[in-house]
């Protein structure tokens, strides 16, 4: 009989792949922040 485990193997595998081979995005490189209303930042 073929096991019919409900373990989300595909999801786990996909997550591992994403973590290992995640493409670099612009959001990984820059982040703009607003300093309106802040004092003493510079």
């Amino acid at each position, binding site marked *: 009989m073929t096991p019919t485990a409900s373990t989300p193997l595909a999801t786990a595998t996909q997550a591992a792949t994403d973590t290992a081979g995640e493409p670099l995005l*612009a959001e990984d490189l820059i982040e703009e922040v607003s300093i309106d209303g802040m004092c003493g930042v510079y």
Partner: protein
Amino acid sequence: MMLDEPWALSPSVALRPEPFGALAYHFGNRRLTFLKRPELVAVVRALAKQPDVRSALANAGIPTSQHPAYVEALRGLAAADMIRPRVEEPR
């Protein structure tokens, strides 16, 4: 924009080194941007010394596969006037 164009850091921008990369602050528009990778800081600093963006990326050791992400990030910096097209002096 932009791989074959000459660019440079805007004269109104100060880069402050940080462990994660650098803070870029624009004294004119008061915008603040985190450069979240030291490699991107190296690219931005190299822009003024290199003939074009592609050369700055190569100089900083950025693999070709990551060029699109870096170009997109540089476009973001350009939109905030952190970097500008460099006007070459006529000879």
